[in-house]
């Protein structure tokens, strides 16, 4: 446990005449102030950390993971799916499906490299959420609520488990989209501010501009205020001076946990300054790893993000979120754009799984691939699909889920979840469960109520746990 009370400081504190009682209260308060020290989960966890691959826009489940022979057979027939479809035509998958792995999981053929991991994937075909609007569904995917400002699942995780490495932020989100609720998707709402996600990579350069420069969307400083204007030794001198001043003050004032906390925060910040860039520096990776992810080959931003995710996971970051390079909101040109998005994500994601596995980390790292909803089995504007929140697919791998499993199902055309439906709350409950947290006990009292990620519902899907 890397708390702020190293032995040396404990000795200093005690030697300056402050008794044990003060120290114990101090230790207690420092935990509240810092709030990030690793905590015991409710029960033995299967996953220690999460890598969340966000596929924003609503990937088409009926084209990717939810194989529906009936939909192929009835291609072009009028859909009769209640009010919603209003006479639209059913639309079969735009690219072929095939079975992969020993488990024979059905998947699109657009994901050839990922398909090699079919036996690691737990595909959930019965997801459903409350609304078919991007902003609300995206918010609900992250916070459980589409309507109110609530803490993100990453913030809850950090609140529940703390971090394994205090020199790094415990919840990192890489280049998150600024729309669809923006910062609220990685915010801490009423939880302590320390639980909020730290955004790495800014939005300083719009996508178009960065494509032109052939650089990342965010070539600037990776994290806010992480780059020092002064050379390291000079800043060290500054921090020593601050420390000296603060210790003098502490001597004058006697007991003061807050001031001790402030002294420590500068040291932590100083270490963070070197550790964050270290984690972000891919130059130390061997050639074969870079190649595995496809780094250095064309537009490789997502590949680098996937590798960064692994490096962060290794360094002890608890919750890492990365966003897909493209948007999956395919109202038209589905055939073409789906292939583009799959091509852009296939190798890096497959590499991430391979890499984690090779390091023995997949077993306790939960990798999640999810968008905010799916798409309709019927067509929109000839070559596209509309939003569908009543049934869609995600997959998870590692971290204690059963590989090679297809869980739940939608109706015959892929419109609505029918078998083992999994609502966002159920999914969140399951993820927390894998992390060793009981979603009904992970609560925070605010405004007179004990709030939880899953509000008043959520059931752990035991069937997917290995």
């Amino acid at each position, binding site marked *: 446990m890397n708390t702020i009370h190293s032995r040396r400081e404990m000795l200093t504190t005690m030697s300056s*005449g402050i008794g044990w*009682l003060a120290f114990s*209260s*101090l230790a207690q308060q420092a935990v509240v*102030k*810092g*709030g990030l020290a690793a905590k015991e989960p409710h029960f033995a966890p299967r996953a220690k950390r999460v890598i969340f691959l966000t596929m924003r826009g609503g990937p088409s489940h009926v084209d990717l993971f939810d194989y529906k022979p009936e939909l192929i057979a009835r291609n072009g027939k009028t859909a009769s799916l209640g*009010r919603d479809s209003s006479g639209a035509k059913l639309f079969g998958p735009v690219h072929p499906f095939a079975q992969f792995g020993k488990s024979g999981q059905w998947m699109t053929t657009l994901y050839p490299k990922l398909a090699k991991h079919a036996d690691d994937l737990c595909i959930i075909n019965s997801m459903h959420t409350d*609304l078919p*609007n991007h902003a*609300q569904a995206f918010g609900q995917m992250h916070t459980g609520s589409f*309507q*109110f400002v609530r803490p993100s699942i990453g913030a809850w995780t950090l609140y529940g488990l703390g971090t394994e490495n205090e020199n790094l*932020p415990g919840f990192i989100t890489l280049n998150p989209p600024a729309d669809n609720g*923006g*910062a609220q998707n990685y915010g*801490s*709402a009423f939880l*302590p*501010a*320390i639980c909020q996600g730290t955004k790495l990579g800014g939005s*300083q350069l719009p996508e*178009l*501009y960065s494509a032109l*420069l052939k650089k990342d969307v965010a*070539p600037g400083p990776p994290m*806010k*205020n*992480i*780059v*020092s*204007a*002064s050379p390291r030794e*000079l800043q060290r*001198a*500054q*921090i020593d001076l*601050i420390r*000296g*001043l603060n210790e003098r*003050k*502490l001597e004058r*004032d*006697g*007991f003061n946990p*807050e*001031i001790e*906390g*402030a*002294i*420590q*925060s*500068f040291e*932590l*910040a100083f270490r*963070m300054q070197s550790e964050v860039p270290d984690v972000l520096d891919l130059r130390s990776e061997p050639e074969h790893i870079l190649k595995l992810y496809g780094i250095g080959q064309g537009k490789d931003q997502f590949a680098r993000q996937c590798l960064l995710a692994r490096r962060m996971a290794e360094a002890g970051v608890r919750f890492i979120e990365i966003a897909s390079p493209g948007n999956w909101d395919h109202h038209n040109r589905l055939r073409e754009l789906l292939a583009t998005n799959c091509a852009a994500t296939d190798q890096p994601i497959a590499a991430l799984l391979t890499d984690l596995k090779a390091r023995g980390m997949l077993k306790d790292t939960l990798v999640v691939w999810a968008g905010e909803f799916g798409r309709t089995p019927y067509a929109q504007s000839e070559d596209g699909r509309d939003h569908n929140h009543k049934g869609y697919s995600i997959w998870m791998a590692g971290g204690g889920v059963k590989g090679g499993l297809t869980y739940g199902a939608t109706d015959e055309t892929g419109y609505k979840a029918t078998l083992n439906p999994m609502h966002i709350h159920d999914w969140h409950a399951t993820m927390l469960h894998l992390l060793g947290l009981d979603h009904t006990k992970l609560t925070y*009292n*605010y*405004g*007179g109520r004990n709030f939880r990620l899953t509000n008043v519902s959520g059931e752990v899907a035991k069937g997917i746990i290995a």
Partner: protein
Amino acid sequence: MLCRIVQISALFISTSLLAAEHWSFQPLKAGKGNSIDEFIQRGLAEKGMKSSPRADAHTLIRRATFDLTGLPPSDESDSSDMSDKHFAHLVDSLLASPHYGEQWARHWLDVARYSDTKGYVYAREEKQWVHATPYRDWVVRALNEDMPYDRFLLLQIAGDQIVPPNSPDLAAMGFLTLGRRFLGVTHDIIDDRIDVVTRGTLGLTVACARCHDHKFDPIPTRDYYALYGVFQSSAEAVVPCAVVRNEELSALVKKNRELMTKRRGEQMARTRARSADYIAAQKDLEKYPEEVFGQLLDDKDLNPFIVHRFTAWLEKHPGNELTEDTLKQLGSPAFVPDEHIANIEMYFPTGVTTELWKSQADVDRFIIKKSAAPAHATVLVDRPLPSMPRVFIRGNPLTKGDEVPRQFLSAFGKQTPFTKGSGRLELAQAITDPRNPLTARVMVNRLWQHHFGRGLVSTPSDFGKQGGAPSHPELLDWLAQRFIDSGWSIKAMHRLIMSSKTYQQSSQSSDLSDPDNRLLSRMNPHRLSFEEARDAWISAAGRLNRLVGGRPEALFASSNTRRTLYALVDRENVPAVMRTFDFANPDLSIPQRTETTVPQQALFGMNHPFVVQQAKSLLNRPEVKSADASTRIHRIYARLFQRAPMSDELNFSLGFVHEDQAPIIATADHSKSWQYGYGEWDESTGKVKHFKPLPHFTGIAWQGDEAWPNEKLGWAQLTASGGHPGNDRKHAVVRRWVAGTDGSYTINSTLIHEPQVGDGIRAFVSHSRLGKLRSATVLGVDAVMNLDTIAFKAGDTLDFIVDIGSGLNSDQFLWSPKITSSLTAVTGAGGDTPNDTWEAEKDFSAQPKSQLTAWEQLVQVLMLSNEFMFVD
């Protein structure tokens, strides 16, 4: 065993009955004691403890000044005499300062979940509130005037019913109307209002009773819906709260009104024409979900909202027929009330709703942007036909339970239904009734909390059973009674608290038998809030603009030297640094900020340009700049700490500034040969007019301000390899190279404009004496811009200029020239000097990242030290 039985049987008794016994619902008790100190001393004595001695004068001045104004004391503050009389005088003068209201308004704005913007709304609507600024300024004014707290609340809840039209006090109602929009879902908007009123004024978590009776407090679901009815019977209206008239605005408002009248008329006619269909639809209700999120309706669809209005009417009037005449009446299901679009957007087809919001947005934008526009308030006004609320079973509006009259909470005794309109005024009067013990207790506790860092009740917005018990119940009641007796004077409470020995005691203590200091044997030191810290930094730099009130400004706009209270609060996008420093979440009523100490705060202090900028400004003050080292340190200490440095402090400060600084890596410093600026291309002279440097360097780009694009210079930006022209032809970006020595030089460069959209860019190469050398207009292509052996005299400049085509669209470009001196032209160099080369991209990256001087480093350190950041 007996115990268990009692416990189990208790479960069968209504929790409400038991909970009404809870201390906070009891009338105020007259306890034994006549002063704060008496109560506190008694608590300490019981534990054999003593209070701490009085703090020194310097500490007291700093404490009082920050507490009351949120600003540091001036460096001239006289601390020689701090007798009780002098201290009382200081408190009086601080209370009289206009900055007092600013500081305490911020505390109230946390409770009022204040934001300048609405949160997530559809694009058709203006994002920013028209009434946020007037509300914030009203709170400041009310506190400065020491408005009695009961009136302060009355105005915020029912101002529309007690002051005349155009009264500035109407702005008070922003308290109710500044919440999130929840995409227009009435139930959630009302829930937010119930929450802010009940937690904010009564310390009761009534919103917990939305779905079930409150689990711990005597608040049944019926009470929640009694209040729900009050707000359901009130409609939002945007009204002027000033007497100024503006013709242009009147015209816009008139146009908006006319459109609304027309569209309402059409909608009513449409519904009447299809009343038979609406009645038929009653058989098929599940087809018309009441929650109409994101449903697109055209004018041929039956509107689900109206379908349900028919349902409600038919239930209420069994046997009655909906005749053409009935349908025209107020309250008929076909009637569209004459209200602001925010209240009635569900009545219309989607296209019409969008049109009406856009028209409203024109009005809103005028009010927000034009300084000539009178201030506006968003008030609630009673609807002509108040509605009788029904309990939503388990909070679900689709399962309606019993009707409940609009009335006050049952925990306060016998309920009598409200009779006047919505009952909002009666609600406000019930809250401010001096016999209601909660309102005064909650407020004095808030005041106490902001003076001592923690309330006597540690859960300031929850006085229910789940909340904390008061540490000094008798003192709390005594203060509450004093508060009411003083005529609800908040300033009287400050005087009372601050004149106590308890408040004036030192925060230093070695007695650790009460580490949490619940008994107040010493003062609690506290870290400056984000607002206090930023204000203190700017103030130390001597740059604080003390103007009170007015429109919000972006937090880090470099021109923004106003108090942090006036920084734009966009609830969709709260600046990360504010979140890092525990700023109150503007979506939720926050009675107490969490206080964390995290490395991100230190990173901000060390590495964000803001603090450095203040350090530099302080050092640039004439009296600091001109002084010798030792005097300078004295003056710096005076500005930062309002005291002289002690001799050892003086010594180590001198040592720090005199230590040798590691020189900056000075590779043949070609970066100095480049300048980055903007100006206007003048075709007639072939040169740039009005060249000015781009003012802000981010470390990777030169631009107008920290944000990009920004208000100052729009999109204008130069990076190592390219850039973006400014928004118009007056703002071409100019990469300027300055020749260091006479000679002739060769220039190699390729201009790349990649986007195939827009109308391209114009580029020029211009010599300070020779004028235009090359030019190109490019769209989606490359242009080679090479120049061979051009003669330069030392000091001549070569400008690489880019401006927009005819319009601003996809104008980013790549252009990083390389300049090589031609050997033959180098005079007196012996002929064997290697070619000297300036590469725009490489030299750009070699720019020093604003290296600080030792003095700047020292001041930055002092600005981040705990003596600066804490109030003892």
